[in-house]
């Protein structure tokens, strides 16, 4: 013998079982289909042994050990349901319930009420009582049913705690809490956010953050993991509180950023009532961020969803049938010359939509004018940013990385799944460095925070690049323009990266709208080459890569080919029989307001300010009604990502399936379908598609292999496309004449919580609490000098604009600088802006 075998023989409820050594009795029972009631145990969490519901009898052991904490041993004889065990459990359950509002558990009318709702009331009621948001989905109810408990033999003690509703997205009613500790364990073990803990003790024990802070103040990421694991109704999602039990689910891909998390949509009837993480090992390992977890429902169910095609004309709105709308569109488009046509499509759309859109512009309209608002979002750094993908690596590589540099990344709300991966890497011993001029959630956990002086961000990276060049010895390179402490840190980081056996660089959004963004991204690329690091860019748009590879830019053809590549261009013209002299004529989205006026502008999922002024006629195709009444437009209702089939390509190059969960509201249709119908009406060939799958097949056949529609490829596609977008770099801003001090330097960033051109904050109530709107960050000293207090209205002005924002005093905001996040920062012009600040007169 001597060798311990991998399995042990046990006897459970008179069955002989062979189970893995190291399993708990509970796991052994579950894997053999034996039910043991539990309340505090959870498959993803460490055993806790707090509720004692899982007690069993084990021969030779004293008392009743808890199955969730006791490992199996060779020869163990276990009984899980003896009458004594059941009686004990009942006793314990009553003790638990004596501190729990239990009307829904032991009400006399329980069974009848569910079926007939016959309880006598003064008014006619057809709904039955609903005391708990978790009714019908509650693990406590399950255990009560299993033990057939119908009364509580102890005096009931109601704790009378205030229901906590101040935080966004979920409410907390700790009167329903059974102190199972699951929420704490998931927050600590799985999310590593450490927001929650037990407080006080004995009968005063409650759950919450330190010092009675709100979850918002305590750094909660609103990932909802705690809400998901809570066995009771103590934690409940505000938006889903009284929706009840879903009747089906659909697995799909989140469309709210380029991580591409896999999610489960909960559906009741024809309505999406919730979204939960899917167990997906490659991308998000069972986690979501606040956008995916809590924003989808409100986003797709909002009353501003468009349901019917409409014709807007001088303030009047007329509803149309699809036939009328398609005819109207075809009529306008048939008489529009290619040069006078322009189309913009959002990178939130699926590959199938994007492909059809560019085909529509190029083939049906014979026009080269197709583009996307991403061009203005990324501005002059677009091309350099896209180049980073050519050195990119899958997210899962974070697991293997020894040293991780985060460039301008904040992972508290958006992308918090990446934050979770980072904390896991840290626990494993990886070192984390973060470069960011502003406060962000990685600052506390990182080993080193490189905090560049404003305006010297590119300089900092340049120093790092120099220090890591092979021929240079680190110690002799001086970092110019940075403080001394920073130089020391830079040397440390450079050494670290040079010696790292597997370094990685994560790129977030802080620098996307930076005035030197292109330099910053080029330097990141060079740094990665110097030290052999993988780059993981985390784009804000879910299908940015799809828009490149489907070719929705004048410079880029499907497959990512350059439209200047004569051979490819000829091939395309031939295979599509396009009658088009040139693919790229210099027209792009930035020419909309400055170039020659268009006759027809076709917007798909795009929402530009004052869009109806940009052309004689606009086709506006989106999921929400336009922000303001339009002068002259055809308004067409689209399906959201939850209502249409298709594929996305996430930031890693992974092709992901988007699945239709419910029908679109009213008459809304998928974007590709509307486009195909119009094209057919115009008598164009090549648009005879009746499903997204057919389009997918055409792409795979004639452009690039995306794999099978129903089972997309497992490996990311190679990100080595050839086309490049042309961006113009801003002229270096002239030096200020000496003696003349610049009043304030303002940097504006663009919001990322955007779907199809709209801010999430407009549709999701909780989002307003976590994403600041029109808040301008200012240093406390500057604020004091200007007599500005937190929350004051301030006027920020220069020759080109004058804006009123709300003051947000931030210690870390560098002196004499301001920062603001806007829907579209490009609306102010290029960063940075020299501005004056004053408190608004009242």
């Amino acid at each position: 013998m001597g060798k311990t075998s991998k399995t042990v023989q046990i006897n459970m409820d008179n069955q002989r079982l062979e189970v893995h050594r190291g399993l708990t009795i509970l796991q052994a029972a579950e894997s053999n289909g034996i039910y043991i009631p539990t309340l505090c145990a959870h498959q993803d969490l460490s055993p806790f042994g707090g509720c004692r519901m899982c007690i069993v009898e084990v021969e030779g052991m004293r008392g009743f050990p808890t199955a969730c904490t006791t490992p199996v041993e060779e020869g163990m004889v276990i009984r899980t349901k003896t009458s004594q065990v059941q009686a004990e459990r009942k006793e314990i359950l009553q003790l638990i319930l004596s501190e729990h509002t239990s009307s829904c558990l032991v009400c006399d009318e329980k069974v009848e009420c569910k079926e007939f709702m016959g309880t006598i009331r003064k008014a006619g009621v057809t709904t039955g009582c609903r005391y708990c948001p978790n009714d019908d989905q509650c693990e406590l109810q399950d255990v009560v049913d299993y033990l057939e408990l119908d009364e509580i033999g102890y005096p009931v003690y109601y704790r009378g705690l205030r229901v906590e509703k101040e935080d966004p997205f979920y409410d907390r009613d700790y009167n329903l809490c059974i102190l199972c500790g699951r929420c704490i364990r998931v927050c600590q073990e799985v999310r590593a956010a450490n927001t929650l803990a037990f407080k006080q003790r004995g009968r005063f024990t409650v759950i919450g953050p330190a010092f009675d802070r709100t979850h918002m103040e305590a750094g909660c990421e609103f990932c909802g993991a705690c809400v998901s694991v809570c066995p009771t109704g103590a934690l409940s999602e505000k938006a889903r509180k009284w929706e009840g039990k879903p009747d089906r689910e659909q697995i799909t891909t989140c469309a709210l950023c380029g991580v591409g998390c896999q999610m489960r949509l909960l559906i009741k009837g024809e309505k999406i009532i919730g979204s939960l993480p899917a167990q997906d090992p490659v991308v998000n390992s069972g986690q979501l961020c606040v956008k995916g977890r809590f924003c989808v429902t409100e986003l797709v169910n909002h009353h501003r969803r468009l349901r019917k095609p409409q014709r807007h004309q001088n303030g009047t709105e007329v509803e149309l049938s699809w036939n009328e709308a398609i005819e109207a569109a075809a009529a306008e488009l048939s008489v529009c010359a290619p040069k006078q046509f322009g189309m913009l499509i959002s990178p939130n759309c699926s590959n199938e939509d994007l492909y059809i859109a560019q085909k529509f512009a190029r083939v049906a309209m014979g026009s080269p004018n197709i583009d996307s608002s991403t061009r203005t979002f990324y501005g002059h750094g677009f091309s350099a940013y896209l180049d980073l993908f050519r050195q990119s690596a899958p997210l899962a590589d974070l697991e293997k990385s020894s040293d991780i540099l985060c460039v301008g990344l904040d992972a508290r709300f958006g992308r918090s799944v990446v934050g979770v991966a980072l904390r896991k890497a840290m626990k494993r011993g990886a070192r984390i460095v973060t470069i960011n001029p502003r406060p962000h959630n990685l600052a506390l956990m990182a080993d080193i925070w490189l905090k560049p002086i404003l305006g010297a961000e590119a300089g900092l990276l340049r120093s790092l690049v120099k220090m890591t060049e092979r021929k240079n010895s680190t110690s002799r390179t001086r970092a110019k323009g940075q403080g001394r402490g920073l130089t020391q840190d830079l040397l440390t980081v450079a050494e670290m990266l040079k010696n790292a056996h597997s370094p990685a660089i994560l790129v977030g959004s802080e620098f996307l709208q930076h005035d030197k963004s292109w330099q910053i991204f080029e330097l990141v690329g060079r740094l990665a080459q110097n030290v052999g690091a993988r780059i993981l860019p985390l784009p804000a748009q879910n299908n940015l890569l799809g828009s490149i590879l489907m070719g929705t830019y004048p410079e880029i053809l499907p497959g990512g080919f350059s439209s200047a590549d004569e051979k490819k261009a000829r091939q395309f013209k031939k295979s599509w029989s396009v009658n088009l002299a040139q693919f790229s004529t210099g027209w792009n989205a930035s020419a909309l307001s400055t170039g020659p006026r268009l006759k027809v502008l076709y917007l798909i999922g795009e929402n530009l300010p004052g869009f109806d002024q940009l052309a004689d006629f606009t086709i506006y195709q989106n999921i929400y009604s336009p922000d303001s009444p339009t002068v002259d437009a055809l308004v067409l209702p689209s399906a959201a990502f939850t209502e249409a089939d298709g594929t996305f390509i996430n930031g890693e190059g992974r092709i992901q399936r988007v699945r239709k969960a419910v029908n679109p509201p009213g008459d809304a249709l998928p974007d590709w379908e509307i486009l195909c119908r119009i094209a057919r009406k115009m008598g164009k060939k090549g648009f005879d598609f009746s499903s997204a799958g057919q389009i997918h097949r055409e792409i795979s056949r004639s452009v690039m292999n995306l794999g099978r529609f129903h089972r997309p490829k497992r490996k990311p596609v190679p990100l080595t496309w050839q086309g490049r977008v042309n961006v113009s770099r801003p002229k270096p801003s002239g030096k200020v004449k000496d003696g003349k001090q610049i009043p304030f330097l303002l940097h504006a960033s663009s919001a990322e919580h955007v779907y199809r051109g709209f801010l999430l904050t407009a549709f999701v109530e909780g989002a307003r609490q976590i994403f600041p709107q029109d808040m301008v960050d200012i240093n406390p000293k500057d604020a004091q000098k200007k007599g500005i207090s937190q929350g004051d209205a301030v006027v920020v002005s220069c020759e080109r604009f004058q804006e009123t924002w709300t003051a947000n005093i931030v210690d870390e905001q560098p002196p004499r600088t301001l920062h603001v996040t806007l829907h579209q920062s490009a609306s102010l012009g290029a960063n940075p802006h020299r501005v004056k600040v004053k408190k608004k007169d009242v």
Partner: protein
Amino acid sequence: MKTAAIDRILERYRGDSSALIAILQDVQEEFHYIPEEVAIRITEELDVPLSRVYSLTTFFKAFSLTPRARYPINVCLGTACHVKGAPRILEKLERDLGIKTGQTTPDRTFGLEAVRCVGCCGLAPVVTVGEDLYGQVEPAQLSRILKKYKEAGSKS
């Protein structure tokens, strides 16, 4: 002042996160409570979450989040002491200190608590002040005892 003291305490344990409870004990001793900013400082130095520090400080009676008296007075109201007249002692102390049981004097010198049996019933009635124990206390002795601590308190 707080910074220097907390530096000294942290130095003693050299950022060892397993020493969290010991550190909190030292902080409690130094300040007679765990000030919020000190708790935050500890989390930064030891890399432990604030929620954990808070959880511990509220779990153990030895820690307090509000300033505690320098000399907590505990009057035993266990059976033996009760019989020997402890309630009168408590009453007298309330009057002398001008506070109710459970409160602390405004200068934070004394705090007054009633406790159950402190385990030396032979000495009933029993009063403890800080670390010191007084047995067979007569109400008349109390002012002398209090005076002693008042003086000690004002000297340091």
